[in-house]
């Protein structure tokens, strides 16, 4: 679709969605099920005046971003080297599968009690977000090693390239697209863990804390406002990543289209 058409179509879809939402509020008629306009009002108030404790929406977003990006970077710093090492040396993965694979399916929320017992302060956020972001990064890196073409390795060898040359000039460039895609997914999952992480952080700022705070007050417009902001920030981060991938992997144009 042409960009202009796509924007127009999305604007129409968004409008229809809002109208449908509004229509449901007329049917449900619950004081805890707000209209779109109530959410917009709550948004303006949060953005301009801040929340009940005076923290502005911008601050909530910034603080959450900082936590998520810290956890995400930690996930990259651990997931990429580990995935690379285990991908290159398969037995290491094969013989630890019984640990890695089950851990992968434990939802981050299930770790909350342990995180409370074992960790303090900022490390709690980092840990919970790391749990969400680590596996996409790790698994993608691990699986990407298969993408390295044997011909490329032999080509490097016949020119005399040693292991470190092959790693730097063949393996890493070959797996970069996969690794970056894993990072993009990992960042998304990490971002989705923000509410869980801020449940146990014990601080009053952050988008997750904002939602929890207003949930206790039964003020749903602000809760939905927090949800929407999480969604939109997630979307923006994803788009940013995609744009970077498109730029970096120009040579892949033919494949991606």
């Amino acid at each position, binding site marked *: 679709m042409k960009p202009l058409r796509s924007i127009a179509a999305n604007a129409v879809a968004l409008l229809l969605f809002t109208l449908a939402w509004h229509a449901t509020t007329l049917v449900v008629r619950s004081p805890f099920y707000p209209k779109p306009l109530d959410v917009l009002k709550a948004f303006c108030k949060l953005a301009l005046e801040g929340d009940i404790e005076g923290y502005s929406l911008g601050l909530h977003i910034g603080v959450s971003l900082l936590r998520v990006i810290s956890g995400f970077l930690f996930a990259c710093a651990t997931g990429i080297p580990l995935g690379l090492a285990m991908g290159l040396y398969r037995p290491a993965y094969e013989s630890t599968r019984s640990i890695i694979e089950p851990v992968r399916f434990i939802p981050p929320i299930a770790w909350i009690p342990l995180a409370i017992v074992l960790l303090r302060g900022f490390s709690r956020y980092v840990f919970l977000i790391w749990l969400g972001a680590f596996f996409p990064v790790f698994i993608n890196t691990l699986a990407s090693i298969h993408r390295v073409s044997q011909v490329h390795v032999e080509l490097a060898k016949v020119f005399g390239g040693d292991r470190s040359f092959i790693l730097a000039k063949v393996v890493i460039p*070959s797996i970069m697209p996969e690794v970056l895609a894993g990072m993009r997914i990992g960042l998304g999952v990490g971002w989705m863990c923000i509410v869980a992480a801020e449940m146990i952080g014990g601080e009053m700022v952050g988008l997750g804390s904002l939602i929890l705070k207003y949930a206790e007050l039964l003020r749903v417009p602000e809760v939905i406002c927090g949800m929407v902001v999480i969604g939109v920030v997630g979307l923006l981060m994803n788009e940013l990543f995609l744009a970077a991938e498109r730029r970096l992997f120009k040579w892949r144009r033919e494949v991606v289209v």
Partner: protein
Amino acid sequence: MDVEVKGIVKSFGELLVLDHISFNVRSGEFVAVCGPTGCGKTTLMKIIAGLLKPDSGEVLLAGEPVDYRRHNIGFVFQEPSYLPWRTVWGNVKFGLEAKVSSLGWKLTREEVDKRVKWAIELVGLEGFESYYPHQISGGMKQKVALAQALATDPHLLLMDEPFGALDIQTRYYMENELLRVWSKLRKTVIFVTHYIEEAVYLADRVIVLSSLPAKVKAEVDVSLPRPRDVTSSRFVEIRREITELIRWW
């Protein structure tokens, strides 16, 4: 560089692929290895390059056991081997980068660039330096592979059905381009093909392999002046001779 292939035997598991293959190639000679599909030509080339170890027998380059770290070998692979994330320039430079970083070749950046430029001009790819492989044609990709191999100034050039994937017209064109480059540089070349005509058109000598397990069935001298006329009676005769050889096996 002289090449001696001495009694090479190679099997994959139960499957005997190469059965005592022996032949010699003189320095500066252009030799074609011709044989039916699946007879072990690629396997043989990888053994000559030292990428695969034979079960028995040995390959000597200039009298010494082959070692791709010590001998400077250019290899054009049967499968596409270009690096899709590198431009034409980057691809041609790849071999030199390996030599500099892993083998300690003392080349300044200017010298590397000069060689890359030389190789690109040699195969006629100037103007396409900044193109990515997906932006150029199949024939040009093979030129990239050739330029990449030649940029390191190898003593032995191994080409494994380099034009096998090209259409007939492009193949003829590439054969002539290869001859033009070869007559300039006079490298030792071993060229694998299963097209008899291509072998007779290009090579000083054709080594004919049998089907699996491959043995050397014959060595045929092609003492015809270049450029060769594929319709001349002598050419047709040699071609028929090799065809008969293969047929009667």
